[in-house]
C-alpha cells in the first residue's frame, strides 16, 4: 500500500506530473485487435454465404419482374382485376386466383389456429414431463412430412370424410349464411374439390408451424411470474391467463401470420384437390376454386409467350405477398418481450 503516493491524473509511470492544458491532445492507442489471416478468411467466407442468400432473393425478384414484364405491359392494372385466363385472346388476370388464395389460406387458419393454440397450450402447460418431449418431437416431425403426403391424404382420405360435413354445414347453416349454400345441395359430388376441403388439408400443413411457434413463446413465460400467480392461489388456467397469454400474445399473433404465409404459398395440396375455376367463388363449400400457386403449377408446362409472362407475374405477386406477410410476422414476434429469442 506504500505505492499510494499522491499522483495526479491518469499519467503513466514515467514523465512529470501532467499539467492539464485545455485542448492538449493525448496520443491515443489503437485498441483494435489485429485479425489473423485465418480470421480474415473465415469471416470472408461466412460473409459471402450470408450475402449469397440475399443475392438469391434479389435475383428471384429481378427474374420474376423481368419475365413478367410483357404481361404487365399488355394488361396493365387489369392484371390484378381480370377474372379470366385467356392469354391467347389477350385477356388474363389474377383476380380470382388472388381471392381463392386468400380464401383457402383463411380456411386453413380457421382449422389450424384453434387446434395449434390448444396443442401448444397443452404441450407447454398441461402435458406431464414424460409426454412433453415426445409431443414436441411429433409436432416437429409433422412439419417435416412432405406436402405431397398431405395432398394424397387430403385427396384420397380427408375429402371422403369431409363431404358429409360440408353437406351438413351447407344444409343447416346455409339458410342463414348465404355463402355456405351450394347449387346442388343434395348431391355429394357438388361438394368435392372445394376450397373448404383444400383449405382443411392445407390447415394440416400449417398446423405444426402454428403449434411450434406458439409453444415456444408459451414455454418462455418467466418462471418467477408463473410462481407468483400460483402462490396467489391461482388455478392453472388463471395463471395461464395472467402470465402465459399476456407474455405470449405477440407469439400467438406471429404464429398466426406465419401460418398465413405458409398457407398462401401452399401449392401441391391445392393443386391435387381443387377443381380449377376462373370465377370469383363466394361459396367455399362448393366445388371449384383456385390459387396462384396451384394455377402456376397447373399451367406452366403448357404456357408460352405472354401467357408464361402472366404466370411469372402471378408468381411475383405471390412472392411479394408472402414476403410481406412473413416480414410482418417476424416484426410482430421480435418486437415483443416474449419473442426476442424466438426463431422464425
Amino acid at each position: 500500500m506504500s505505492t499510494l503516493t499522491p499522483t495526479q491524473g491518469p499519467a503513466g509511470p514515467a514523465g512529470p506530473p501532467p499539467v492539464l492544458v485545455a485542448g492538449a491532445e493525448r496520443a491515443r492507442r489503437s485498441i483494435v485487435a489485429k485479425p489473423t489471416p485465418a480470421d480474415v478468411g473465415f469471416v470472408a467466407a461466412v460473409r459471402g454465404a450470408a450475402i449469397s442468400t440475399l443475392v438469391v432473393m434479389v435475383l428471384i425478384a429481378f427474374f420474376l419482374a423481368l419475365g413478367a414484364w410483357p404481361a404487365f405491359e399488355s394488361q396493365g392494372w387489369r392484371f390484378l382485376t381480370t377474372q379470366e385466363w385467356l392469354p391467347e385472346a389477350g385477356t388474363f388476370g389474377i383476380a380470382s386466383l388472388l381471392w381463392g388464395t386468400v380464401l383457402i389460406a383463411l380456411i386453413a387458419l380457421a382449422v389450424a389456429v384453434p387446434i395449434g393454440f390448444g396443442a401448444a397450450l397443452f404441450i407447454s402447460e398441461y402435458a406431464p414431463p414424460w409426454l412433453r418431449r415426445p409431443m414436441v418431437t411429433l409436432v416437429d416431425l409433422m412439419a417435416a412430412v412432405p406436402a405431397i403426403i398431405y395432398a394424397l391424404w387430403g385427396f384420397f382420405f380427408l375429402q371422403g370424410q369431409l363431404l358429409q360435413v360440408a353437406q351438413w354445414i351447407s344444409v343447416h347453416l346455409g339458410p342463414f349464411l348465404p355463402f355456405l349454400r351450394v347449387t346442388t345441395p343434395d348431391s355429394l359430388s357438388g361438394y368435392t374439390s372445394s376450397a373448404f376441403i383444400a383449405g382443411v388439408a392445407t390447415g394440416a400443413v400449417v398446423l405444426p408451424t402454428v403449434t411450434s411457434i406458439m409453444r415456444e413463446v408459451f414455454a418462455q413465460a418467466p418462471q418467477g411470474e408463473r410462481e407468483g400467480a400460483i402462490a396467489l392461489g391461482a388455478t392453472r388456467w388463471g395463471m395461464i391467463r395472467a402470465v402465459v397469454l399476456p407474455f405470449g400474445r405477440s407469439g400467438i399473433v406471429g404464429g398466426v401470420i406465419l401460418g398465413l404465409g405458409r398457407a398462401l404459398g401452399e401449392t401441391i395440396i391445392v393443386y391435387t384437390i381443387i377443381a380449377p375455376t376462373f370465377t370469383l367463388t363466394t361459396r367455399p363449400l362448393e366445388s371449384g376454386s383456385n390459387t396462384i400457386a396451384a394455377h402456376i403449377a397447373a399451367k406452366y408446362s403448357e404456357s408460352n409467350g405472354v401467357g408464361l409472362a402472366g404466370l411469372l407475374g402471378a408468381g411475383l405477386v405471390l412472392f411479394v405477398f408472402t414476403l410481406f406477410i412473413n416480414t410482418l410476422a417476424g416484426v410482430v414476434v421480435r418486437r415483443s418481450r416474449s419473442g426476442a429469442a424466438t426463431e422464425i
Partner: protein
Amino acid sequence: MTRLDRKEGPVAPTPAAGPTARPAHRADATPAALVAEQVSAWFGDHQVLEDVDLTMAAGRVTALIGPSGCGKSTFLRILNRMHELVPGASLAGRVLLEGQDVYDPALRPLESRRRIGMVFQKANPFPTMSIYDNVLAGLALTGRDARGAALGRRRRRTDEDDALVERSLRSAGLWDEVRGRLGTPGASLSGGQQQRLCIARSLAVRPDVLLMDEPCSALDPTSTRRVEETIREIAAEVTVVIVTHNMQQAQRVSDHCAFFLAAEGRPGHIVEQGPTADVFGRPQDPRTDDYVNGRFG
C-alpha cells in the same frame, strides 16, 4: 402434540394479536399459527430435509437462517404447497394451519396457497398489468371477486376496489410513492418498489400467513430498510415466515428464529430454534454460534 412439546418456543397460537387488536379491514383474516410436524422432503431420491419440527407463531415473524443448500427455501415452499410444483419432489410429515393439514387430500392446493401467501427472492409483479391491477390480480386469479372480474378485461373500478388497493399499498409501505401513477405498468417501478408491490399483491387477498423467500437479497440498503419496516408493520396482521441470509436482518425483523443446517451427510434439519434474542445472544449449539457470528456459511 406431545412430540411438539419437546421443542421450545410457543406452541399454541399466541393471543398476542387478538381479533380486537386488528384493523377492521382485515376482519376476515386472522394471523394463524403454522406448525410443521416431522417434515422431510426429497427431490427424486435425494433427501433435502429431515424431520423438521417448527411452530411459526401467529402474528409473529419467524426467520429461517442457515447456509446455502440447507433446505430452508425448500421448507418455505413446502409450507404453501409450492414444493410439489417441482417435478420429482416428494414429502413426508404434516403442515398444520390452525390445526388443519394443508396437505389434506380433500383440499385443493390452491385453497392452501390462498391462505398462505408468498413473496419471492426476485420481485415478480405482472409486468404488463398496471400497479392497480397488480394489487387486485390475486382477487381475479382466485375467483373471489364476486363481480366476476376477468383478467385483462376492462371493467369499472368500484370504490371497494379503490379502497382495497389503497389499504394494501399502504400496508406494504408503497402508497405514497405510487398514488399518483396507479395506472402505470408494474414493470416501471424500481426493484425495491416492485418487491413492495408484490407484498401488497399478497396482502390484498388477505392471507393468514405470508412467506418471504429472501425478499431483500436483490435490493439496495434503502429499499431493504423499507421492506423490513413493512415486515414489522404487517406482522400484527399476518404471520410472517422469512428466509434470510442476512444475520442483521434476521435480528432486526424476527421474533423467533430457526437455524437450518445440512452437514456431515445429514439432510437439512433444524439445529437450533428459539426466540431470536436467544439464538443470537446465547446460542446453545456451537455450530449456531459459529454461523450467527459469521465464522462459516
